[in-house]
């Protein structure tokens, strides 16, 4: 029986160094994930907001140039304060920040969905088919393995956050026809990219930690869904309950707050009070911990801080003549308003916990079959 039709040849090539070894894992992982048709559909859907972002930045660029092309479009922008429309160049940064803010907010949802599709099998499948010896019997460190797997998640999150943010930025610059804009708006791009990286690292590490806990990827997917949805729902319920409580407290304390008004009309009194209630509620939100319960809420808070969304709303709120209206605007569109470093601390803790869990669950061959 011939053992080979073609004899064994020695290989005289050179092996590369260790620095980029993780890239091989990422490359292969991305290739395999692209075979998933559902993932391709989600990626396609996730690019729709990017298209809207590009459109909005381009329209604003044309608006700054007072182009006749946008005169028909302006009538669709009536929801924006007329002062802002009248001075597009002055409000350029604010509008860009808001556009990027809304874009990243939507893309955060798609990022979580993509992590749900891509992430569960990354380590779980290796554990199930006992493939870890294939990695660790080769010149590969554990950190290379984790970086490679994290790279797969990061690639897809980057595709729906960082890449469209950069492309939209370029389009925004092209339509503004003013290279000075690049200097002014560059921090926004930097903030969007930084926010994208934070999502990649946080969600990626967390998903890898979940994935290392079970050999069954359905369980891992359920962990993730639970963490994502349940934490969000619990946070919403807590916030809603707290708002009800505030409303009740405010209602019962109303005569004490304005005992001298005489209360000529219950309805009139109610309207005044409720207008003031917005300010009362806004003050309460400044130190409300309940949004911290939501994982995506925390990411959102950091994104808001990086992109300066709350500052923009504070600036736009000043255009409103009434105090209660300003508070209403800030609560309705801005926020969350609690200190951003709370979220940073929580996400850092979550990252460290995930890293520790990864280290523990795939300690070495000492623990492997």
């Amino acid at each position: 029986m011939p053992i080979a039709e073609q004899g064994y040849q020695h290989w005289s090539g050179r092996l590369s160094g260790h620095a980029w070894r993780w890239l091989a894992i990422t490359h292969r992982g991305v290739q395999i994930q692209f075979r998933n048709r559902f993932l391709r559909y989600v990626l396609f859907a996730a690019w729709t907001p990017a298209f809207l972002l590009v459109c909005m930045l381009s329209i604003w660029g044309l608006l700054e140039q007072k182009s006749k092309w946008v005169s028909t479009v302006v009538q669709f922008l009536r929801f924006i304060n007329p002062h802002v429309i009248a001075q597009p160049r002055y409000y350029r940064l604010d509008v860009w920040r808001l556009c990027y803010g809304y874009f990243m907010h939507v893309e955060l949802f798609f990022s979580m969905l993509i992590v749900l599709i891509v992430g569960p099998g990354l380590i779980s499948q290796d554990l199930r088919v006992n493939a870890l010896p294939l990695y660790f019997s080769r010149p590969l460190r554990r950190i290379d393995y984790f970086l490679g797997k994290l790279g797969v998640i990061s690639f897809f999150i980057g595709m729906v956050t960082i890449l469209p943010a950069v492309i939209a930025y370029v389009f925004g610059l092209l339509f503004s026809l003013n290279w000075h804009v690049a200097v002014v708006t560059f921090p926004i791009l930097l903030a969007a990219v930084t926010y994208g990286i934070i999502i990649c690292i946080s969600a990626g590490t967390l998903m890898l930690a979940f994935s290392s806990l079970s050999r069954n990827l359905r369980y891992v997917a359920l962990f993730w869904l639970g963490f994502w949805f349940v934490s969000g729902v619990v946070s919403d319920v807590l916030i809603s309950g707290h708002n009800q409580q505030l409303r009740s407290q405010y209602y019962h304390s109303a005569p004490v707050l304005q005992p001298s008004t005489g209360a000529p009309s219950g309805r009139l009194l109610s309207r005044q009070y409720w207008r003031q209630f917005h300010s009362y509620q806004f003050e309460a939100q400044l130190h409300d911990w309940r949004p911290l319960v939501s994982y995506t809420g925390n990411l959102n808070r950091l994104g808001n801080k990086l992109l300066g969304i709350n500052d923009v709303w504070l600036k736009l709120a000043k255009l409103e003549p009434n105090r209660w209206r300003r508070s209403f605007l800030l609560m309705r569109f801005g926020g969350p308003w609690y200190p951003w470093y709370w979220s940073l601390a929580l996400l850092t803790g979550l990252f460290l916990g995930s890293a520790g869990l990864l280290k523990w669950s795939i300690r070495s061959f000492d623990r492997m079959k």
Partner: protein
Amino acid sequence: MADAQMQPIIELKDISKTYGQVKALDQLSCVIPAGATGLLGPNGSGKTTMIRTMLGLVRPDAGTGMVFGLDIRSQQLDIRRKIGFSPEDDCLFPGVHGIEFVAYAGELCGMQSSDAMQRAHEVLDYVGLGEVRYRKVESYSSGMKQRLKLAAAIVHDPQLLILDEPTNGMDPAGREHMLQLADDLATNKGMSLVFSSHLLPDVESVCRCIVVLSGGKLLVQGDIGTLKQIHSGSYELRLKEAPGNYVEHITDAGCQVQINGEMLRVRLPDGLAPEMLWRQAALDHVQIRHLRPQRSTLEEIFLGAVERS
């Protein structure tokens, strides 16, 4: 070439490794030369831990070790660049083609993706999987999976190949094929081989040296030819036809006879020479077709060592 073969590639000194209450390796010291070496031992004897220690995957509690002159404690990555390892378990990623699997193994070792792909084609041809390279790995038979793992282990042309139970679950033809490949790599391609197996004939057909472990300790080590020492006064004898009264007559002369199928194992009493067997055969009109001094089999060496331990 002979000198090169005698150069030690693995030197372990007083290596100990404990998992909880279990001593996997107990002050193990051994030197493995270049060439093909069989690693033998009953279940739980420490073979796998020894392999993992050599790969730098397990950090020993005590002792020192060198592989190709590299320290197993501090130069694990450099060691693994020189080693190809084919684990016992299936450990194949589902959903990938054979060619992708082998190329990926090459990339993990640090090969450029184009080099890895080209090399994957070569080694798959070599192990006889060229025709099925584009089939998904889960559709491979047990024998094909073992050969695929072998291809993945040699894709970066290692200096040392470690095969852990490579013939497990294979049919006779597949087993023969795998042994031929291992022998070819060790004999003709200059690749050193550590062959861990429970199947003694497999080890004997491929390896020149053996290392026998039990309870994490080294029992026997050395050249198989040397270990199979000649038993003085004992002979293996085969007759052309049925022995008739021949066995009875030589037993009466003081010989101890043990019948193993067609083979007779005869132990002569002191003072008798083997010529006596010829003379008696002539008298009994039986024809001796085979007569040679008896040597220990690998099985006897193994069992003897384990029993002594």
